[in-house]
Each structure stands twice: as C-alpha cells, then as structure tokens.
C-alpha cells in the first residue's frame, strides 16, 4: 500500500478527532440515559460506512449524516423503552456558565416539545452548521431549512411567553 494513503484506522481516528463533540451531542440529545449505547452504534456505523466514503464529498457533513441517520433508526429500535425526549443531562451540561443557567433550563424544557427533525435542526443550528450543509444532511432545500428555523424561533418565543 502507498505510504501516503491513510489506512481505514487512520481515517477513522482523523474523522473522530474532528467530530467527536458533534457526535457526542447527537448521542446525548437522542440517546438520553442510553447515550452510551447510541454513541457506540454511531461509531460502529461510521466505521462500517467509511470504506464507501468518496474523497470529494465534505467529510464532516458526511459524518453528521451518518450520526443523525443512526440516531433516528436507533430511536425506533428502542422506542419501547420510551426514549423520545431529550434528557435533562443535556441541558444540564449546557448550564455551565452563569449566564447560561436560565437559558439552559428553558432549553431543557423546550427541546422535548419539538419533533425529531426540528430537534435535529436546532442541534445543527447550535453547532453553526450552514443551511447548505443542513439541507444536504436532511435532504431538503435551504429555503425549507430557513423557514423551519424561523418557525422554531417563533415557537420558542411563543412558548416562552406562555410560560411567563
């Protein structure tokens, strides 16, 4: 093998080193108390899919797609265990700084009110993933993403107003 060609193991490690935070966020957001199980499933799917990864595509977007699709399928497999909502652990982790405390607590209550795809959009939005990449990950149009994000923000405002 050409020494300059990275092995599967090297590609796997490289991908994980760049995306570990995002992968972890998806595992926490959809896996709840069983986030470790989901994390392992995501890593396994990345490993299995990596040989088919074409060099020319955006690798990090590809990685996010694998993680998200795996989370959606995994959720259905464990639905009987009623993991449908984001667990408090996620939002508690967000409440790290002083100014994040109030918003983190609200987010903890708000996220479960969203459906799966809206939740995925919020996660990607918080990760600063561009609308172009979000559209590529979800298989929809950039316009539809912008409309949906706008609606989620509106819903958040209304939801917050209802609370107070």
């Amino acid at each position, binding site marked *: 093998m050409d020494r300059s060609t990275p092995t599967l*193991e090297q590609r*796997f490690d490289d991908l*994980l080193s760049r995306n570990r*935070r995002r*992968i*972890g*966020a998806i595992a926490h957001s959809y896996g709840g108390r069983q*986030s*470790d199980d989901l*994390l*392992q499933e995501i*890593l*396994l799917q990345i*490993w*299995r*899919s990596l040989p*088919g*990864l074409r060099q020319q595509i955006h690798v990090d977007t*590809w990685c996010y*797609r*694998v993680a*998200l*699709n*795996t989370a*959606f*399928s995994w959720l*259905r497999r464990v*639905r009987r265990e009623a993991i449908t909502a984001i667990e408090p652990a*996620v939002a508690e*982790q*967000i409440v*790290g*700084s002083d100014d*994040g405390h109030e*918003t*983190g607590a609200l*987010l903890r209550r708000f996220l479960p009110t969203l*459906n799966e*795809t809206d939740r995925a959009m*919020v996660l990607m*939005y*918080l*990760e*600063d993933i561009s609308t172009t990449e979000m559209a*590529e*990950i*979800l*298989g*929809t*149009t950039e*316009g*539809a993403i*912008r*409309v*949906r*994000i*706008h609606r989620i*923000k509106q819903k*958040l405002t209304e939801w*917050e107003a209802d609370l107070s």
Partner: protein
Amino acid sequence: MNLDDLKPTWQGEDFSGPKFDEYAASIRQRGRTFEAHILSRDRIEMVSAIFVILAAIPGILNGPNWMFRLGFVFVVVGTIEVIAVMTWARKKDRLPAVDLPLREYCDVQLRRIDRQIWLTERVLWWYLLPLMIGAPLVFFSVPTHWVFQGIVVGAVLAICIYVYRRNQQGAKLQLRPLRDSFAAVLDQLDSDAPLEAKQPL
C-alpha cells in the same frame, strides 16, 4: 431566550464523554468481526434449507406410495420457494446506506419496511402452506394408527398457526408502527416545503 444566544455555551461543551476513546478503540477491533457474524447467519439458514431438500429427496424417489412422495414434493418445492423468496428479499431489502441524506434514508427504509410487511402478512402463502399440505400427506400415507397421525398432523398445524399469528402480530405491532414513524419523518421534512416561497426569511 434566543437560539443564537445559546450557541457559545453549546459549542463550549464537550459532549463526547469520558468513554468516547474507549468505544472508538473497541469499534476498531470488533468492526470487522461484526460483518463476519451476519454472513455466517445467512449461511446457516441456507445450509439448513439445503439439508431439508437433501433429506426429502430420498422420500420422493423411494417413497412407499404416491401420497408419501407427493407430500415430500410439497416440502421440497416449499423449501426452494422459501430460499428464493428470502434471497430475493435480502437482495432487495438491504439496509440503506447510513450516509444518505435523511430524506432519502427514510424513503429507502420505508420501501424496505413495506416489502417486509407484504412478506410477513403473506407468510401463509410463501412459507407455511407447502408445509401444511406436505406434512399431512406424508403422515397420512404411512400405515400407522390414526391417533398417531392425528397427533402429528395436529402438531404441525398448531406450529403453523402459531408462526402465522406471530407474523401477523409482528406486522401489526412492530412493522406498521415502524413504517408510520419513518413516514412521519418524511411528513415533517415535507411540511415546510410548500411554504418556502411564501415565508422567506
């Protein structure tokens, strides 16, 4: 609260957790053996089917009467049919590549589950019926006490009914809800598409 305000806090958190590296190392080690496990399961099913066929052929060739031979013909034809259907289903129903865009991924899943529902709901025709006909023919053709024949045939029918009911329940309680959940994701993705032109940001 504004989503934009949450970004810095969110992005400052490390969600990967303490076991991330341990899991990654474990996947590297067992990733390849996982593939081998799937292959061996398929081989076991295929070898079992071939064994049934080989065991039944002497019955067809050397059976004591036409009813006995016809019974085994049903069993062999049924087994070949099962192999054919399952091979076709496996070829068609491969899991979608997990790196597809979500919409496409759900779409492939939906088609795959539809085929599984179709097969599961019709398990009587492609899986059970040849056995339900073949086994009674074989046992009624053997000169033995009718009570024994009745018990054996009754047992075969009871097993077939059990398998049939389990499949119907599986389709109703597992596959259909699963199908609906993937369809719901597609609905969620589609719901804003018509509004794209009406409500641009």
